[in-house]
C-alpha cells in the first residue's frame, strides 16, 4: 500500500534540481523557460527545487568540467534515492563544441550515471518536457 502510494506520488510530482556543470547558459535558460507560462511544466507536478536533498531528478546541463567534477559527484550523492539524471543538451551528452578542450572531461555520463539524454544545442523547452515525460514513462513500466 505504502509503496504503491510513494510510487504514485513519485510519478505525479517529480521534483527537479537544475545543475549547471559548465554549460553556456543557453540550455539553462531553456530549462527555466520550461517552467514559465508558455510551457508551464508545473501543471505536471514538476517543481524546480533549489537543493539536491529535496530533488528526485537532477537535470544536468553542460559538459563536466574538471573543476566541477567532484562537486557533481557530491551533489549526486546528496540526492536521496531513488534518483534519476537527465542530461540536457549536446554538451551534457558528449561535450558539444567544447570536446577536446583541456578543462572538459566530456559528457555527464563520464562522471555519474545518466538515465535520459535530451539532444539539442540548445534544447527546446518542449524537448525538456518530452525528456521528463519519457523518464516518467520509464518509471511506470
Amino acid at each position, binding site marked *: 500500500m505504502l509503496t504503491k502510494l510513494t510510487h504514485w506520488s513519485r510519478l505525479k510530482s517529480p521534483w527537479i534540481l537544475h*545543475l*549547471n*556543470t*559548465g*554549460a*553556456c*547558459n*543557453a*540550455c*539553462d*535558460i*531553456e530549462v*527555466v*523557460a520550461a517552467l*514559465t*507560462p*508558455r510551457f508551464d511544466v508545473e501543471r505536471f507536478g514538476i517543481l524546480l527545487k*533549489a*537543493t*539536491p536533498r529535496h530533488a528526485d531528478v537532477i537535470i544536468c546541463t*553542460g*559538459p563536466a*568540467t574538471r*573543476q*566541477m567534477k567532484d*562537486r557533481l559527484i557530491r*551533489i549526486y550523492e546528496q540526492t536521496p534515492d531513488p534518483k534519476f539524471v537527465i542530461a540536457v543538451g549536446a554538451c551534457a551528452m558528449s561535450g*558539444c*563544441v*567544447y570536446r*577536446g*578542450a*583541456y*578543462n*572538459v572531461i566530456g559528457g555527464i555520463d563520464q562522471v555519474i550515471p545518466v538515465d535520459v539524454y535530451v539532444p539539442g*544545442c*540548445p534544447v*527546446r523547452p518542449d524537448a525538456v518536457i518530452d525528456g521528463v515525460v519519457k523518464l516518467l514513462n520509464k518509471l511506470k513500466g
Partner: protein
Amino acid sequence: MKFQIPIGPQHPALKEPISLRMTVEGEVIRDADIRLGYNHRGLEKLAEQKTWIQNIYLTERICGICSHSHTTCYVQGVEKLMELEPPKRGLYIRTLVAELERIHSHLLWLGVAGHEAGFDSFFMYTWRDREIVMDILEIITGNRVHYGINTIGGVRRDLDEQQVKRILDSLDILRQRSEYYKHLGTNEPSFVARLAGVGYLSREDAIALCAVGPTLRASGVAMDVRKDDPYAVYDEVPFEVCTADTCDVLGRTVVRIKELFQCYNIIEFLLKNLPAGPVAVRAPRRAKPNEVVSRYEAPRGENIHYIKSNGTDKPERLKVRAPTLGNYAATIQMLKNGFIADVPLIFAAIDPCICCAERAVSLVDARTGQEKIISLNSLKSLSLKLSAGNKRKREAEWPL
C-alpha cells in the same frame, strides 16, 4: 565575531556555478571574495585549433544569453583583419538581431530581479512576454537561442516583407507590456522598497572599479559603446543612452526598463529604413598577420575581443573580456556593508553571466578591489619569486 560563509558553487541563490566567500559580522557583510573556475572550459585555447568560420560557432557558445554579442564582436574583428566591408543590409539585420537580443536579455533580467525580490508573478509575466521575442528571433534566424546568423562578411539569412510586418506587430504588444513594467517597477511600493538603496555603488567607485553596462549607467555615467565608438550602423540610428542616478539596484532596474523602450525605437527605425541589396560578401579563407581589438555593447556592458592572426586560416590568439568580468570588482564593493539577505539581489543586479566571464587571468586584489596591470616581464619575475620555495610540480597539491 567574524564568520566566513561560503556560498556556492551549487546554491539556491545562484543560477550558475560560482563560489562566494563572505566574511560576516552578524548579518553584515564585511568582506567578500569571488572564486571562479567552475565553468571554465578552455575556450580560448580551443579557438586556436579551429578555422575562422568554425570559431563563429564556438564564440556563440561562450554564452547563451548574449550569444549574438560574442559572435558579432568576433566577426567584426575578423572582418577588420580581412579588410572586408559587409553590405549595409547585412549590417542592418545584424543590428536588428542584436537589439532583439538586448530585449530578451533585459526581460529575462527583470524577471530574475523580480524573483530575487520575492515577486514571482513579475518573473512569470516578463518571461511570458519574453517568449514573444524568442518567437521573433526564431522566425528571423531559425533558432531560439543560438541564432547562428552571423557570418564573416555579413549575415546568413535575409528578411522578407512578411517577417518585417510580423515583427512590427509584436513590437506593439511588447511596448504595451513594457509600459506596465515601467509602472510596476517604479510605483509598486513593496517592490521599490525592496530594491531602493540596496547595493550602493557611487559614481566615483563605479568609474574607479571599471564597472560596465547598466551597472555603470545606473551610477550616473553615460557610457555606451554604441554611442562612444559606433560599430555596425549605430552611427545612423537615433537613440539615447539611458542613465539613472540612484546608484542602487532600483537604478539598475530603471536603466534596463528605459533601455527596452530605446530598443523598440531602434528596431522600428531599422525595419523602416532597411536598405535593399545583398546581405553578405564572400570572405577569404585566410587573414593577413595582424591584430585587432573589437568592442561591442552587449546587454550587460562592454564586450571586448582581441584577435591576432598569423596568415593562416586559424587565429593565433583569441582573447575575450566579457562584461561580467568587468563588473566583479564593483560587485565586491556593492556587497560590502550590505546584508546577507541582499546577496542574491545584488549579485543578480549586475546580471552575471558566469560562463561568459570564465576565461581570464586578471590580478584582482579581492581586499581592495584594485586591479593590477603589470607587464609580462614583471609578471614572470613575480611568479618566479612567489614560486621560489614551492614544491616541485609532481608533489604540489591542487590549490583549490
